[in-house]
């Protein structure tokens, strides 16, 4: 816990905003959490008063909320021993040489370009897609799309921001959303105007210079009526960070007839506690799709959810989890049917290896009056050896009429017959196993953009060889 965080948030104000912090004014990153630190964060960012108050109120809530007593074991987190905000200069102390060898090896094997590697490893905040980014940004601006980091959005579009911020996930939702609300920094802000279809998937990647992968990032996406956007967060290559706690909040509003797809591929290094709250509100005839891949981290607790607020809304969660040695992936999805005639599906695929543990935890809630809803949940788990563990905990609450609800789950190993078939054709065992695993998660991979799918396949291959920590 007490390690020094290195990927930091809010570091490059000077370059970006011409906001100069005098050298003699030392904003010492203090450990721990108190109202003074929260006020300082807000001051450093030059935020309006309402946001400062919001943060302070959230801190109060965070203090009052008990730790969740279910799911993964979180008792080792020491909130008083975490840096909640850091300044630029501390970042430069880190160099390529400091990276653990297994992370470097993975970059090699994945064929990640040097510049990108450094970016991923938090050594450099620069990434060479700047040109691409600029032309994309121009194109978007023409259509009226806003795509900014969340801090800039608060500055540049204060009214729009205030209207939606914190409305989907209030600070009091859970302990970690309260923490995020108190100390958030970075993340993406997207607004898609009425009728606009954004053809190119938007990636946090493109938004260079901004704090993409902060510890307490905060993302807000608003899809106005009849619009479409696909947002991609993270990447398949392992993200090295010495921060031990990653607690993001993602809020999405999908208005009438709009569609939003949110793809996450996260591969945190295995010292990270990844505790994320993701929720979308889908209105009339809107579609919300979460495509969620969890590979790294020590513990992940993440249940992307969709609140189906008006008739005709549709929610979809497609998630995979891979747990290796010492990892616990407690992932799943939530579908809250508030309105009648809404539909949802959750598909979960999990793989456990070398003593790893994957848990599916889901909740389907159908409120009184939300009649004629349909919901289907399917969970498949693959256990690769006899040390690993898989659990399924689906919670279903149906309080409405004429509801059709289904849940199916299977747990199995790589079948001997499949292995035999491949090996009889001269394919070595390890390779055959990898093929079977890749086949198992294929429904997920085929939803990814090509370059991600290729990388994910390669990564699974590495994980299967046991060559990656």
């Amino acid at each position, binding site marked *: 816990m007490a390690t020094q965080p290195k990927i930091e948030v809010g570091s490059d104000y000077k370059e970006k905003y011409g906001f100069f912090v005098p050298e003699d004014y030392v904003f010492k990153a203090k450990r721990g959490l108190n109202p003074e630190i929260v006020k300082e964060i807000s001051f450093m960012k030059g935020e309006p008063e309402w946001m400062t108050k919001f943060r302070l109120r959230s801190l109060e809530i965070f203090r009052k909320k008990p730790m969740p007593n279910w799911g993964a074991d979180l008792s080792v987190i020491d909130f008083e021993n975490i840096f909640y905000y850091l300044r630029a200069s501390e970042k430069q102390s880190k160099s390529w040489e400091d990276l653990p060898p297994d992370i470097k090896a993975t970059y090699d094997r994945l064929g990640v370009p040097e510049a990108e590697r450094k970016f991923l490893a938090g050594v450099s905040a620069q990434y060479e897609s700047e040109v691409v980014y600029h032309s994309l940004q121009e194109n978007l601006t023409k259509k009226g799309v806003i795509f900014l980091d969340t801090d800039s959005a608060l500055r540049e579009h204060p009214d729009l921001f205030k209207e939606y911020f914190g409305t989907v996930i209030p600070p009091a939702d859970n302990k970690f959303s309260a923490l995020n609300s108190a100390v958030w920094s970075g993340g993406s802000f997207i607004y898609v105007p009425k009728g606009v279809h954004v053809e190119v998937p938007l990636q946090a990647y493109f938004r260079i210079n901004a704090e993409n992968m902060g510890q307490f990032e905060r993302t807000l996406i608003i899809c106005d009526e009849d619009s479409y956007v696909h947002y991609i967060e993270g990447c398949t290559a392992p993200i090295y960070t010495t921060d031990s706690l990653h607690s993001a909040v993602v809020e999405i509003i999908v208005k009438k007839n709009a569609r939003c797809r949110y793809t996450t591929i996260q591969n945190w290094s295995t010292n990270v506690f990844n505790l994320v709250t993701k929720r979308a509100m889908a209105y009339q005839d809107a579609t919300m799709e979460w495509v969620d891949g969890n590979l790294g981290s020590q513990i992940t607790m993440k249940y992307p959810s969709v609140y189906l607020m008006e008739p005709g809304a549709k929610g979809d969660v497609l998630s995979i989890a891979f747990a290796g040695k010492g990892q616990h992936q407690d992932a799943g999805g939530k579908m809250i049917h508030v309105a009648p005639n809404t539909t949802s599906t959750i598909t979960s695929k999990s793989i456990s290896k070398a003593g790893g543990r994957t848990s599916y935890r889901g909740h389907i809630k159908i409120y009184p009056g939300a009649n004629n809803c349909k919901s289907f949940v399917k969970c498949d788990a693959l256990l690769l050896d006899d040390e690993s563990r898989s659990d399924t905990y689906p919670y279903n609450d149906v309080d409405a009429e004429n*509801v*059709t609800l289904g849940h199916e789950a299977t747990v199995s190993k790589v079948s001997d017959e499949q292995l035999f078939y491949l090996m009889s054709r001269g394919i070595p065992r390890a390779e055959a196993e990898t093929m079977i695993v890749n086949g198992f998660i294929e429904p997920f991979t085929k939803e990814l953009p090509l370059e991600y799918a290729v990388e994910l396949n390669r990564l699974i291959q590495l994980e299967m060889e046991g060559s990656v920590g």
Partner: protein
Amino acid sequence: MGITAETLDQLQGEPGWLRERRESALSAYGRLPLPSKTDEEWRRTDVSRLDPSQFSRLEHLDGQKLVLPEALPEGVILEPLRVAAERHRDLIEPRLFSLVHADRDRFTALHAALFTGGTFLYVPDGVVIDKPIIGQHFSHESGTGVLPHTLIVAGKGAKFHYLDEYIAEHDDETGYRSGSTEIFLGEGAQVGYVAVQKWGRNVWHFSDQRAELQKDSTLRLFNVTLGGSFSKTRVEASLVGEGSNAELKAIYFASGDQFFDFHTLQDHRVGNTRSDLLFKGALQDVSRTVYAGLIKIAKHAARSDAYQANRNLVLSDKAKATSIPMLEIDNNDVRCTHGATVGPVDPEHLFYLRSRGIPEPTAKRMLIQGFFGDVLDRIPFEHARRLVEAELESRIG
């Protein structure tokens, strides 16, 4: 009148060891808190309105009516449990409440403290009984407590069928009912066990059925839940011997404002074990049901096969079924599947039948019968099957 040592005084003529057991269970009852809504198991199951002490007058002290095959084979013991406690202490003392623990919660404690009638069945090694043994437990009065307990011990290779019937004399009686069963299956034993719960519509009912299966034994358990305004049933099987096989099936039919809760456990402690669970229920009117089941496969229980399914047919707009099938799998060399469905009668099926001129009520009845059909076929013996079919027929009506 509360539940005190005086309540126990209604149960005279028992050996000292049993009295001591009851006293310790009674103190557990006093000590254990009432389950609250924050316990996952009780989150949807509300017992806050229940005060067992108003039913502290116990009924049915002399056991039950036993319907026996004409002659029991040599060595078979079939006696009221309280009588057997005196005569066969060596067989009963180590087993009684060793599967259904008295201190699990307030209601198991109450059951262990106050169990009234019930049966002890001991079938020695290698003995086969062809005809089913039937224990009928009656309640005659309103406002009483009736708490029969069945203890079954099957020796190596023993083979027999047993039926517990819980019957109310008056369908509208109130009271506290608790019918629990412990089954021990020795190596290679084959036991068919059926429990049919038809208590009155206004009673509180708690039941724990738990079996322990040794090597190569087979249990076919079938539970039928029809009565009670509140009924909570746990069905649990511990597979402790390789090659053991537990088949756990149940049907329930809830109507009016009945509330049924089922918790099941398929506990695979060793490898090469098999369990197959299917709970099917239909709900009418404003009834509610909760099903929560867990398959647990221990670390070394390789080559185990487990199946778990809960299917709910919701026949009314106001009825609610909750289904929570869970898995905890600690070994990869297993096959596990589970599934749950909640839904109304398929409109296409209904349309198909109606298009052939079958009136809607008849078509609906046929579909309900069809829904239960595959599980009724799994009732382990003929007598019970006829009984359950007739019972169901009258309710679907």
